[in-house]
């Protein structure tokens, strides 16, 4: 019987393969590579979903039965899936494949990180503080937001790479979408992420109010999510009101994703309630 852990480590390699296929499709013009890459991404996303489902099933069999969203390992797996799904939607909607190279890199790195021995992949029962339906709403919305921000950052990096390239119409960069499309995609991903991050912070606040009797306590994780939110709010105002676009928005989007990464990982180095490890 195949376990979720072994299935998910296979998926890690499929994401790696997807990455390679997207890079090949980027370099060589043959459409078949692009179709292969897309197929591989779809397969990885399906496998990823199956892995999460299987893990849920395993937890049911162990008598715990909670959705696999309760520790760092499980959140990384879910994060990978959300990146893949959002990307596939973008590819379908905008018919752009070059971004796939960036989009496959993110889940590949996340899943590879999750499989490090220092990150426990054991299925653990829920401690009393986590036994709440708000956990599911909170984690899912936060990670949808994080995934959109990750893609926004990837697209911004592509933008910056293209703009620092000698002639953006030549070589590899010629196949990267034009500046205005990249800019628009970044903006779309940021607004999508911002809505989900807002809902994520709100569900977290409602949950904290139910568990601890206060909706906001300035604990480091909460504060960092607010910092992230403020950075993206700055970006949105700079763009909508001051007409910023292009490079400056790309830099802000990278700064925002840095704040996301710190909220996600860095906070574990600081003292606080969200002991997500």
């Amino acid at each position, binding site marked *: 019987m195949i376990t979720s852990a072994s299935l998910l480590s296979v998926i890690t390699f499929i994401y790696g393969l997807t990455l390679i296929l997207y890079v090949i499709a980027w370099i060589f013009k043959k459409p078949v590579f692009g179709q292969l890459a897309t197929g591989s991404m779809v397969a990885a996303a399906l496998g990823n979903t199956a892995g999460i489902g299987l893990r849920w099933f395993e937890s049911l069999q162990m008598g715990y039965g909670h959705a696999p969203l309760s520790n760092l390992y499980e959140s990384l797996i879910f994060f990978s899936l959300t990146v893949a799904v959002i990307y596939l939607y973008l590819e379908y*909607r905008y018919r752009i494949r070059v971004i796939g190279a960036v989009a496959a890199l993110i889940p590949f790195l996340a899943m590879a990180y999750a499989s490090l021995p220092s990150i426990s992949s054991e299925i*653990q*029962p829920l*401690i*009393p*503080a986590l*036994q*709440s339906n*708000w956990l599911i709403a909170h984690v899912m919305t936060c990670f949808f937001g994080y995934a959109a921000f990750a893609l926004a950052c990837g697209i911004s990096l592509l933008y910056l790479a293209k703009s620092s390239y000698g002639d953006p119409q030549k070589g590899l960069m010629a196949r990267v979408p034009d500046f205005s499309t990249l800019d*628009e995609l970044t*903006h*779309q991903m940021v*607004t*999508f992420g*911002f*809505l989900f991050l*807002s*809902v994520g912070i*709100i569900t977290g*606040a*409602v*949950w904290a*109010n*139910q*568990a*601890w*009797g*206060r*909706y*906001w306590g*300035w604990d*480091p994780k909460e*504060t*960092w999510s*607010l*910092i992230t939110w*403020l*950075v993206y*709010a*700055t970006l949105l*105002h*700079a763009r*909508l*009101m*001051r007409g910023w676009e292009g490079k400056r928005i790309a830099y802000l989007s990278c700064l925002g994703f840095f*704040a996301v990464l710190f909220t996600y990982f860095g*906070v574990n180095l*600081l*003292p606080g309630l969200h002991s997500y490890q």
Partner: protein
Amino acid sequence: MNNTDKNDSFFDRLWKLFTSVKLSVALLLTLAVTSIIGTVIPQNQNPMLYQQKFGEVLYPIFEALSLFDMYNSWWFRLLISLLIVNILVCSIERLSSTWKLIFPEKLNFRADRFRKSPNRTEWIAEQSPEALKGVYGDYIIRHFRHSHIETDDTAGYLIFGEKGRWTRLGVYVVHLSILLLMVGALIGSIFGFEGYMNVPVGASENTILLRNSDQSMKLEFDIRCEDFTVSHYPSGMPKEYRSEIAIVDNGKTVLEKALRVNDPIHYAGISIFQSSYGKVPGDKFTVVFTDNASGMRVEKRAAIGEQIKLPADGGTLIIEDFTDNFSFRGHNIGPTFLSRLVEKSGTPQPLILPLDYPSFDKMRQGDYAISIEKIDYRYYTGLQIARDPGIPMVYAGFIALIIGCYITFFMFHQQICIELRPADGRTTVSVAGISPRNRPGIKTAIKRLARKLGKLTGQENKPV
């Protein structure tokens, strides 16, 4: 807006400062950056710890800047207040013009504004302009709030449609939500409270210790803890903390409920949360007298408040109190009984009886060394008690924030124009749209509209 000149009064210039988005961008970034401090320096800890950590130079500076309670400091509150004034002033400044935009007295449609639009899509249809006008006109009337058809000078037609003007209010909903959150938080901090209470099993309590202060407060009712249990998973991880709680109001039990984490009790505007637990010594324990000369042990069962006779009629011992953490010459010696010894000859003297150091009392060099063993513990449940009358407003702010963001980001004001020009019995159809601030969504909306219109009249118009 009036133009800036030197004669503007101070108030005018201040007003102008607060209408600027530069200020909001600066404030948002400043809040983001300063918030980091409080995540690096743990907040609201014992001043001694800070002194040790930061030394004599930095400590007074940090203290003066309120860095140890920065989210409540004057300067952090000032930043938030500036943001609020910024949002208010900006909204007041713009709402009237936005309002006029949303509810215009007369709509005016001008075809030339659409001709330059980059999303303009064109195709050739087999039907006559008149036929197309009927079908497309119907569609636009049904799907757009405002519409208008006019004849073009080249004997073609122009069909205009417009919808989503009201979505321009989305931003105001978002900004209103921020105000609701702030006002709700303010109401909570003025009229609410937050504190802790420990209730031993079988006991009732009504006094809470307020958070971050040494004050206490009395509730109007009693909280009784009938029972407390901790259950564990086979791995040893905690599975459930459960307190059987009864609320006793005016001597009557008015509510009984199993209190668990994530499942609070609400009574009379006050919420009760399962927060911690611990042990207190139960009624009975054993006092051991060890003869310092012979080493002989005499044991007696006793309880707090009881008088215990010393062996050989040597006097009495009264166990007065118990504390979880007793500090002896600056060292924490853990759970300790505090007692008073009245010997036959001599004045009463206080005795410290730490549980973890049974030979502690040997130091006194009396006839007997006294220690305490075999305690029956009982649990107490640690409750967090809070009242926050700001919650409804905060939650209203949450809902407004979500709805407002959705409207602002995913809906937009759009105006479209379909142009039908006769071309040798056939018709050139072109569709274009504009939206304020060139919202990216308009491109997709036009693509879809073109596809839809093409289908209505049997063309597969692949946008070129």
